[in-house]
C-alpha cells in the first residue's frame, strides 16, 4: 500500500477547513491551508512515485465496495500507472504554482476563503479523476471537476453574466455526460464490469471492428463526453464564456488541467479506440475541425482572455487530432507542454489585468513592455513556446502531432500547419497589442508582487525547456510509439508557418498599425462572421433553447397539463359537485367530527365487506 488516497484527500481536507472556518480565519491562514494542502499532496505524489520505481505495471489499490447489485460490483479503487503519473505531476505541480499565484491575485477580493475552498475541492476531484481505476470513479472526478468549474465560473455571482456562464458550462457538460453515462451502460452490458483492467483485458482479444460495432458505439459515446469536458465541436461553446471566472481559475481549470480530462479519458481508453477505427477517425476530424474553427475565431477577438480561451479550444483540438491518428503519447505530451505555456499565458494575462485594475480589452492596452517587464518577459516565453518556435516546448509536442498526422493522412498535416500559423499570429497579435506601441488606457500600470511573479518565472522555464522532458518515451509501455513521418522538410514547413504568423502579426500590429482596420473593412462580411464567433451561440439559442422553453410552456404545461388533463379531471369533478358539498360539510373544523367521519367511513366499508362476504 502506498496510500494513494492521501493524494486527493489532503486537498479535500483543506477545502473543508476553509469552507467551515475560512470566514473567521485571517487571509494568511486561509491561503496557508490551501497552498499547504496542495504542497503536501504534491510531495506525496513524489513520494509515491519514487516508492513505486519504474511503474512497469499499474499499481492498484482497492478500498471499499461502492455499489453492489446482482453480479455488478464497483469499488472505490485508485491506481497509478505511467499515464496517471504524468497527469499527477502536472495537476499537483501546476496546481501548486497557481495556488501560490492566487494568494496574491485574489488578495483584495471578497470571498477569499470561498475561492480557495473551491480551488482545493477542484484539486480533490481532478486527482480522483486521474487516479481512478474504473470508469465510475473516473466519472466521480469528471462530474466533480465540472461542479467546481461551475462554482468558480460563477464566483462573482453578483454579476448575471457570471451566473449565466457557470450554468451554461454545467448544462453543456451535462450533454457530454449523457454520452459518457450511456457509454458506461454499454460497457457494463458488453464487459460486465467498469474496471479498467478487466475491460481492457477483454477488449484486447476482440477483433478490430470494420463497421459500426459495439466498441465503436462505446467509443463514439465516450467521445461525446470528451467533447463536452474538453470543449470540442459541437460542445465547445461553454469554454469562452467560462472566462467570467477569476483568471487563476481560467489558468488552472480552463486551460491546464480540467479541460484536458477528455484527452486523458480517450487516451486511457486507447485499447477500445484502437479496435474502433471509425471512432478514431471521428476523434481526429472533430479535433481538426475544432482546431481550425477556434483558431479563426481567435484571430479577431479583442478581449485578452477570450483570445487565450479560443486558443485553448484550438490546442485541445490538436490533442484530439493526435489521439485520432493514434499518436496517444503525443497527445499527452501536448497536454503537458500546453499546461506549461497556456497556464503561463493566462497567469500573465492575469498579471496584466491586475496591473490595469481589471481591464481586459486589448484595445485599451499597449506599451506595457516597459511598465511590467517581468510579466512581459515571462509571457513572451509562453508565446514563443505556443508558436512552435524551436527549441521551445510547444515545438516538440506539436511536431510529434503533425508528423503523426502526416503519416495518417497528409491533408490533416496541412490543415494542422495552417492552424499553427494562425496560432502564432493571434498569440503574437495579443502580445503586440498589449506590450508594444504606446499605452492607450487610463490606468496606472504597476508590476505584480513576487508571489505572483515567482510562479510566472517557473512556468517560463518549463515553457522554454519542457520539450526535453520526453513524455512519449516514458509512455511507451502503454502506447506503442505511433508510426510517423520522419522528413525534416515537414518540420521546416511547420516552423516556417509559425514564424510567418509571428511576422504577419508584427507587420500588422507594430509596423503598419493601420492594416488590420483596412483588412476588416475590405472583408466586412467575413470579419463580422468571425468576430461574432460564427453566431454559433445564437444558432443554439434559436434552434434548441427557445423552442424547448417556449414549447414546454405553451404546449406541455398550458396545453397538455392544464388544457387537456386538468380539464378532464375538473370535468369529472364538476359532475361530482355533490361530492364536493359533502366534503364541505365534513370540513367543519372540529377534530372530533373529523374523527367521527374516519370511524364512520371505516364502519361502512367493513359492513359492506361483511355483507359481500355473507352472500358468498
Amino acid at each position, binding site marked *: 500500500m502506498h496510500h494513494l488516497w492521501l493524494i486527493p484527500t489532503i486537498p479535500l481536507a483543506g477545502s473543508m477547513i476553509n469552507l467551515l472556518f475560512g470566514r473567521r480565519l485571517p487571509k494568511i491562514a486561509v491561503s496557508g491551508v490551501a497552498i499547504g494542502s496542495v504542497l503536501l499532496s504534491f510531495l506525496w505524489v513524489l513520494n509515491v512515485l519514487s516508492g513505486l520505481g519504474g511503474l512497469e505495471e499499474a499499481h492498484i489499490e482497492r478500498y471499499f*465496495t*461502492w455499489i453492489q447489485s*446482482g453480479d455488478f460490483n464497483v469499488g472505490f479503487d485508485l491506481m497509478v500507472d505511467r499515464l496517471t503519473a504524468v497527469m499527477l505531476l502536472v495537476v499537483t505541480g501546476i496546481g501548486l504554482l497557481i495556488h501560490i499565484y492566487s494568494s496574491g491575485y485574489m488578495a483584495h477580493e471578497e470571498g477569499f476563503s470561498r475561492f480557495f475552498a473551491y480551488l482545493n475541492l477542484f484539486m480533490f476531484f481532478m486527482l480522483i479523476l486521474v487516479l481512478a481505476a474504473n470508469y465510475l470513479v473516473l466519472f466521480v472526478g469528471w462530474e466533480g471537476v465540472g461542479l467546481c468549474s461551475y462554482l468558480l465560473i460563477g464566483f462573482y455571482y453578483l454579476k448575471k453574466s457570471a451566473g449565466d456562464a457557470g450554468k451554461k458550462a454545467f448544462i453543456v457538460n451535462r450533454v457530454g*455526460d*449523457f454520452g459518457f453515462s450511456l457509454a458506461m451502460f454499454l460497457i457494463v452490458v458488453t464487459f460486465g464490469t467498469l474496471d479498467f483492467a478487466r475491460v481492457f483485458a477483454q477488449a484486447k482479444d476482440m477483433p478490430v471492428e470494420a463497421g459500426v460495432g459495439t466498441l465503436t458505439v462505446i467509443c463514439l459515446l465516450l467521445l461525446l463526453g470528451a467533447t463536452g469536458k474538453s470543449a470540442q465541436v459541437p460542445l465547445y461553446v461553454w469554454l469562452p464564456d467560462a472566462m467570467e471566472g477569476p483568471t487563476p481559475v481560467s489558468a488552472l481549470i480552463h486551460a491546464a488541467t480540467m479541460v484536458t480530462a477528455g484527452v486523458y479519458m480517450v487516451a486511457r481508453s486507447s485499447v477500445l479506440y484502437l479496435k474502433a477505427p471509425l471512432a478514431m477517425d471521428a476523434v481526429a476530424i472533430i479535433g481538426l475541425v475544432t482546431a481550425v474553427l477556434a483558431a479563426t475565431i481567435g484571430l479577431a477577438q479583442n478581449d485578452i482572455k477570450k483570445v487565450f480561451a479560443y486558443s485553448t479550444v484550438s490546442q485541445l483540438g490538436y490533442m484530439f487530432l493526435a489521439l485520432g491518428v493514434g499518436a496517444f503519447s503525443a497527445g499527452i505530451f501536448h497536454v503537458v507542454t500546453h499546461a506549461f505555456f497556456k497556464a503561463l499565458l493566462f497567469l500573465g494575462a492575469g498579471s496584466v489585468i491586475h496591473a490595469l485594475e481589471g481591464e481586459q480589452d486589448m484595445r485599451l492596452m499597449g506599451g506595457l513592455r516597459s511598465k511590467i517587464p517581468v510579466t512581459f518577459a515571462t509571457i513572451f516565453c509562453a508565446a514563443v513556446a505556443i508558436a512552435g518556435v524551436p527549441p521551445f516546448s510547444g515545438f516538440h509536442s506539436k511536431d510529434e502531432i503533425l508528423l503523426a498526422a502526416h503519416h495518417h493522412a497528409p491533408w490533416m498535416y496541412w490543415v494542422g500547419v495552417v492552424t499553427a500559423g494562425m496560432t502564432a499570429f493571434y498569440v503574437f497579435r495579443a502580445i503586440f497589442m498589449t506590450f508594444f506601441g504606446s499605452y492607450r488606457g487610463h490606468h496606472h500600470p504597476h508590476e505584480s508582487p513576487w508571489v505572483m511573479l515567482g510562479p510566472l518565472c517557473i512556468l517560463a522555464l518549463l515553457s522554454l525547456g519542457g520539450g526535453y522532458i520526453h513524455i512519449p518515451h516514458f509512455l511507451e509501455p502503454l502506447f506503442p510509439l505511433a508510426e510517423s513521418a520522419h522528413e525534416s522538410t515537414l518540420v521546416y514547413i511547420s516552423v516556417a508557418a509559425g514564424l510567418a504568423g509571428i511576422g504577419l502579426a508584427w507587420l500588422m500590429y507594430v509596423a503598419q498599425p493601420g492594416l488590420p482596420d483596412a483588412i476588416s473593412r475590405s472583408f466586412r462580411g467575413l470579419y463580422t462572421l468571425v468576430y461574432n464567433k460564427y453566431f454559433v451561440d445564437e444558432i443554439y439559442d434559436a434552434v434548441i433553447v427557445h423552442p424547448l422553453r417556449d414549447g414546454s410552456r405553451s404546449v406541455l404545461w398550458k396545453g397538455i397539463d392544464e388544457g387537456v388533463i386538468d380539464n378532464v379531471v375538473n370535468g369529472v369533478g364538476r359532475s361530482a359537485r355533490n361530492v364536493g358539498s359533502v366534503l364541505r360539510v365534513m370540513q367543519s373544523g372540529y377534530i372530533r367530527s373529523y374523527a367521527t367521519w374516519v370511524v364512520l367511513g371505516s364502519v361502512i366499508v*367493513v359492513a359492506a*365487506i361483511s355483507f359481500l362476504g355473507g352472500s358468498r
Partner: protein
Amino acid sequence: MLLNMILFLPLAGFLLLLFFPREQRGAIKTTALLVSLLVFVASLGLIPEVRNAPTAMSYETNVSWIDYPPIRYHVGIDGLSLWLVILSTLLTPITVLVSWNYIQKRVKEFFAFLLLLEFGMIGVFLAMDLFLFYVFFEVTLVPMYFLIGIWGHDKRIYAAVKFFLYTLAGSVLMLAAIIYLYNRGGTFDYPILLEMLRNGRLALSSTEQFWLFMAFFFAFAVKVPLFPLHTWLPDAHGEAPTAGSIILASVLLKMGTYGLVRFCLPMFPGAARDNAPWIVALAITGIIYGALVAMIQPNMKRLVAYSSVSHLGFVVLGIFSFNQLALDGAVYQMLNHGVSTGALFMLVGYLYERRHSLEIADYGGVATPAPFLSAMFMITMLASVGLPTLNNFVGEFLVLQGAAQVNFTWAVFAAVGVILSAVYMLWMYQRTFFGEVSEELRSHMHDLSPREWATIIPLVVLMIWMGTGTQTFLPVISASNERTLEQTKTNVEFQVNASPSLSSQVKELLNVR
C-alpha cells in the same frame, strides 16, 4: 413487540394530544417532538434483525382483528420496508421541528394530524393483510387532506379536494380488487394469498389477472404519480404547508411505488410483465415531461413537484424493467428522493417563511444575506441533479444501468431526464440565490437558525452517506428484491382464454361468486 410499539406510539401520541388544552402550544409541540423522536430511535432498533434475514418477515404479529370477514392484524418488516419505515420515522420529528414556528393557527390539531399521519405511513409499510393495508392507505389520506385544506395557501380547498378525489378514485378500485381476491381466495392475508397463487390453489385466469393488476396499478400509479395521472401533485404541493409537502413528497408518493413492488409484481407477475412496455413508456414520458414542465414553472414548490414526477418516473422504469439492478436502483431511489426532495421542500419552506412568497421572481441574490442557507440548498440541489457521491446518483445509475441491460433505447431516453434536471435546478438556483439582492429582500433574509440547522443537517448527512456508503443500505434491499424477482418468475403459467370480448371480461369481473 418492538414493531407494534413503533406502529402504535404515534397513534397513542395522537390520542394524547387530543386531550391537551389548545392554549398549551409549547407542551403540544414538545410532546409531538418527543413522541416522534422516541419512535425514530425505536425504529433504529429494527435494523439488526432485518439485516440478518432481509427476505423473511421479522417482528411478525399475526392476530385476528375482525372475526368475520376474517381481517387479520398481520404486520411484519423485511428488507423492502425497513428503510421506508425509518425514512417515515426520521421525517416526522423533522417535520415537527420544521413546523415549530410556521404553524400559528390550530396548533393542536396540526401536530395531532402529523402523528396520525405517521401512524398511517408506518402501517402502510408494515401491513401484511390486504384489508389492513387498505385501511392504512386510507388513513394517510385523511390527515393529509386536512393538512392541505386547513393550513395550506390560497387555493388550498381546490388542491385538497383534487388530492382527495384523485387518490380516492384510485384506492376505491384497489378496494374492489381486494374484495374480489377475498371472494376468490377466502382470505385477506397477503402471504397466504401469495402462497395460494404460487401453488395453484388460487388460479386466476389471464383476464382476472389483467383486471386485478390494473385495479391495483391504477391506485398506485395515481399515488406515484405516473404521467398522465400527475396533475394533482403540483396543486397539492403548491398549496400544502411545508410539513405537508415534505411528508407528501418523501413518503406518501413512495406508498405508490412500494405497493407496485410489494403487491403488483408478486401477485400478478404475468400481467405485470405483459403490460410493462406501455408502463415503461409512460414512465419515460414522465421523466422527460416532468423535467420540461418543471423548467418553466414560476413557482418553486410547483417546480419541485414536477421534478418529483420526473424522478418518480425513474423509479417506475426501474420497477418494470424486471432486472435486479434496475429494481435495486428503483427502491434505493425511493429513499433518495425522500431525502433530497424532502430537503428541497424544507428549504423552499424556509425561504417562504422569510419572504412569504413562492414565486422565483420575488427572489434573487439570497446567497449574500444567507450564505449557509444557500450552501445547504446547493448541496441538496446537487443531490437532486444526480451528482456522483451524493445519493440520487446511485439510484439513477442503477436504474439506468439495469434498464440498459433490458433495452438500451429505454436508457437513452431516460438519461435525457438527467440532462434536463440540471437545467431546471440550476436555473432556479441562479434566479433565487445569485445576482444582486434588493434591500427589501435583504431585510427579510436571515441565515439558518439553530432549529433549522437541526432539521437540515441529518438530511445532508444522509445525502452524502447514501451516496458513498451504499453498503449500509443496499444489501437488505438487494436481497429482498432478489426474492421479489424470483416471485415474478413463478406462477406465470395460467390459462389464456380464447380472446374474450371486453363485455365478457367486464361480466366476469362483476360476477360475484
